[in-house]
């Protein structure tokens, strides 16, 4: 979207009212609708994120429950099937459906992944890594352009979980920052993905974070991971099937110190616990955000010191 370069950090402005959010799971609908949202409460800045493509339906209860949640909460649409890195000729049919949902639900945030998932007309239903080359960077930028043009607004792109290294011309922060600057998108920093990548490929997670300009970051994800069933702790898998691990919380605290207050999503996609349990985990994330705000108000130069 050549005419939509960011002149100001609009991603941050869009999400500044959001606190810690949760993945929206149908099994939690009754619990969510029972929350006391009408009066100010600790949940007032709660928000929910959905995988956009799960709502590619013509009608029926799935859309109705999203409508019910939207009445009281802000939403984030997180795409998993856009394939920004490849197969862009099929993008318009995809973004047409995304745009229809955006037009109805007006999500606060819209995001996708810096990966590929489609090739030769097939969809591989997972987040496949791109090599960090100039050629792949251009392909990703073209994909972001197509996507943003298709939906008529800018997006955030998420750093992938890396399980091995591919031949590359640049490191991941360079790759993502360049993609963001040249396409006008922002970044969604997934702290769990970063932690996993650091363990699987030996990168320095904190050094990675310091290379990301704060004004590009519009959202943060945290989630649980699991060791590979065969290779154990030497290969961590981004399962979203467990509670957030202590080192990921620590890395979140460091990220918030660098970036300032950002919407933080606690992701959970498998082994879904009771809603209260997820809300408790979400409260921990909110406590980190509150702590970040407190430090900001008590010590304005704090960020500069950390940087």
């Amino acid at each position: 979207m050549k005419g939509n370069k960011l002149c100001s950090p609009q991603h941050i402005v869009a999400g500044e009212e959001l606190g810690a959010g949760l993945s929206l799971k149908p099994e939690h609908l009754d619990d969510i609708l029972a929350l006391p949202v009408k009066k100010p409460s600790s949940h007032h800045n709660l928000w929910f994120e959905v995988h956009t493509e799960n709502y590619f339906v013509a009608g029926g209860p799935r859309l109705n429950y999203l409508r019910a949640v939207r009445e009281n909460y802000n939403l984030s649409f997180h795409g998993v099937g856009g394939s920004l890195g490849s197969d862009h000729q099929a993008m318009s049919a995809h973004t047409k459906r995304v745009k229809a949902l955006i037009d109805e639900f007006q999500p606060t945030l819209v995001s996708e992944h810096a990966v590929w998932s489609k090739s030769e007309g097939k969809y591989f239903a997972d987040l496949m890594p791109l090599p960090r080359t100039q050629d792949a960077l251009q392909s990703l930028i073209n994909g972001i352009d197509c996507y943003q043009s298709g939906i008529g607004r800018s997006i955030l792109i998420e750093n992938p979980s890396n399980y091995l290294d591919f031949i590359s011309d640049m490191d991941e922060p360079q790759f993502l920052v360049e993609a963001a600057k040249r396409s006008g998108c922002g970044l969604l920093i997934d702290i769990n993905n970063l932690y996993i990548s650091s363990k699987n490929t030996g990168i320095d997670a904190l050094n990675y974070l310091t290379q990301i300009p704060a004004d590009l970051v519009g959202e943060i994800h945290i989630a649980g991971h699991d060791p590979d069933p065969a290779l154990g702790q030497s290969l961590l898998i981004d399962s979203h099937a467990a509670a957030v691990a202590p080192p990921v919380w620590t890395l979140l605290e460091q990220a918030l110190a660098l970036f300032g207050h950002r919407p933080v999503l606690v992701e959970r996609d498998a082994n879904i616990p009771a809603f209260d349990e997820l809300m408790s985990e979400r409260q921990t994330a909110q406590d980190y955000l509150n702590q970040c705000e407190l430090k900001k108000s008590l010590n304005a130069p704090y960020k500069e010191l950390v940087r």
Partner: protein
Amino acid sequence: MSTHQYIDAFTRYLRSGDPSAMAHFCENASHIKRLAVYRNGFYKGCVDALTANFPMCEKKMGRESFRKMARLYVDHFPPEQGTLVGYGENFPDVVTDFMSGAALENKDTLELTVSKQSTAHLYVNLTDIAHLDYAWLMSLMSADSSEILTVEYVAQLMEQGNELTELSVKLNPSVLLLRVNDEAFAEWISLKTNSNDVLSTEFSTSNIVMLWRLQGAVQARSLSIAEVALMQALQGKSGSLGEAFDAALMLDENFEVSDAFTACLQNELLEIENI
């Protein structure tokens, strides 16, 4: 190295499981086996989606047998849209091919065939059950009706002196008619309701089941021949109520038009085309 070459090689790996084409794209050759995470993720996502979309098939076959068949399906029909919603359109046909022993020649198929011989009962009615699962899903996700014909609206028309038989209506988008054998339908209902015995239902001779969505929940029932004629007259295109009921009466002169119309209204089956 072009991105195109890289993605081509990765695609070949995902489809075949042979990582050799990816070797020169990986920085550390000893890590190449880690590519399996991506291939496993692809298959798991697709198989989980098929499990969600064909729940009674899975229940009938058992988890492991179902997942083997689902994996075969992914090999032959990988998704083509950037979503797994509705994935499995051809799954009932693959079940049919498998049942007839056609195609799908590979190691997994052979293992399944051996398994099939010892557990033949698991496969009786399976194709029809797959069709019913998919029709149920399609009905659930179908478009909402633009303007449902309600009892109140009919009463209003009658008060105004309108002739109901001239009312132009069609079936709402969630209504699907499906040809399956009665025994399979009874077994599918039994699986859905967790009944240990196959329910004895009042079978018709039409072998047509109608599925529709009412208040967000999908309903299903078998139809008589006259009911099939009625529904088919209203499906897809709009027609007058009078013509549709005439089609039913031609097949069954004792067809209870009033009861059928009331049932259509109560189940929100009809939407108004125009007056």
